[in-house]
């Protein structure tokens, strides 16, 4: 819309004035956000606050990927959606929420199930990828695609009262496979549908994912060592930060002699795919 890549528009100055005041961000940082494209995979509990804050803070282009529709049981945590959008496409509902908040944000809605065939095409052209998905198979898929396309990956997860947050494949740090070379047995993996989640838990982690994206886009992240943030509603203190290993030379995908050179069948690799859902729980 006529936006110049090295100048802020008058309406951008008005909207982002409180961020322009911060030396760490300033005009330079705000321009970096505006000229960046971020892909958020999953518009559920994590993707809701993450996408809202990224759009609010001024990321110029946001991609959203989801194949699901909004359900009433989502609304206790998925605050980008609405009662009225129940039954409709999540990415369309999320795009509506973002445009209500910030019409300056360009939103690309990918209303598909991300898989080995389309993942690289979807990720191509983005500067950062956010993993806000809900199953192990898709987490390995997105990780491997990010390694192949050399994209940093902001990975969050939340189940019950606990959450985890890590930036993978960035600045000599590990990828998801470096930490978890073998997938967990399918019967040990718990999803939010099966085991529940307190609404605000993905809220906290998803907001922090948006913060990690800002750190990546503005350059601050380059000075930080690889770490994983652990969060729990039920522990004291609620947050702990764990020091992580570097990239593993023997990693199957990001190592020195990778054996995984193309995306594979991740449902087979994990013994369970993104559509293997437990039945809804009833009283």
């Amino acid at each position: 819309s006529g936006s110049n890549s090295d100048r802020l528009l008058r309406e951008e100055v008005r909207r982002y004035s409180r961020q322009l005041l911060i030396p760490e961000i300033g005009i330079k940082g705000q321009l970096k956000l505006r000229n960046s494209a971020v892909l958020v995979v999953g518009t559920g509990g994590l993707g809701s606050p993450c996408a809202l804050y990224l759009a609010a803070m001024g990321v110029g282009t946001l991609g959203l990927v989801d194949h699901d529709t909004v359900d009433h049981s989502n609304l206790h945590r998925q605050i980008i959606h609405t009662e009225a959008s129940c039954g409709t496409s999540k990415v369309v509902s999320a795009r509506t929420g973002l445009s209500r908040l910030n019409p300056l944000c360009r939103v690309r809605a990918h209303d598909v199930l991300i898989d080995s065939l389309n993942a690289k095409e979807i990720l191509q052209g983005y500067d950062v990828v956010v993993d806000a998905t809900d199953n192990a198979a898709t987490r390995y898929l997105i990780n491997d695609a990010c390694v192949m396309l050399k994209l940093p990956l902001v990975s969050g997860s939340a189940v019950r009262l606990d959450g985890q947050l890590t930036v993978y494949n960035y600045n000599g740090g590990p990828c998801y496979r470096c930490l978890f070379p073998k997938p967990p047995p399918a019967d040990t993996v718990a999803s939010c549908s099966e085991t529940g989640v307190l609404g605000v838990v993905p809220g906290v982690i998803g907001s922090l994912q948006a913060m990690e994206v800002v750190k990546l886009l503005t350059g601050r992240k380059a000075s930080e060592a690889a770490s994983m943030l652990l969060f729990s509603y039920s522990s004291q203190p609620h947050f702990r930060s764990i020091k992580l290993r570097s990239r593993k030379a023997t990693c199957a995908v990001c190592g020195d002699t990778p054996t995984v050179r193309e995306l594979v069948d991740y449902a087979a690799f994990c013994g369970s795919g993104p559509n293997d859902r437990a039945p809804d729980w009833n009283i």
Partner: protein
Amino acid sequence: RPVAHDEKCLTITAMYSGGMERLIKDEKTEVVHKIERKDDSTPLMMEEFIAYLGKTDVAEGKQDMFIQENSVRPGIMVIINMVDWEVEGELEYELKNNDCVEFISTLHGG
């Protein structure tokens, strides 16, 4: 009082979270272990410690949700004193007195 280096007894805290606690007797999240060594030159390696926890802490019938092939099963992170155990040598890490070892399930939900 500072612990002398020649003691034969190691105090090690095992912590379980992120869902791991559901594999543990009484769903405990923290168990302090006092482990006698034959003498002070016998090291306690992580591999032996994991096998020991499988017997002492893990609930009946859930051992193979904790241990697989002499290590923890895939999907469990091991954190030694707030550091990813891979940095510390994984199964070859030699436990020191007052170490804190955490076992945390990877979460996949969102």
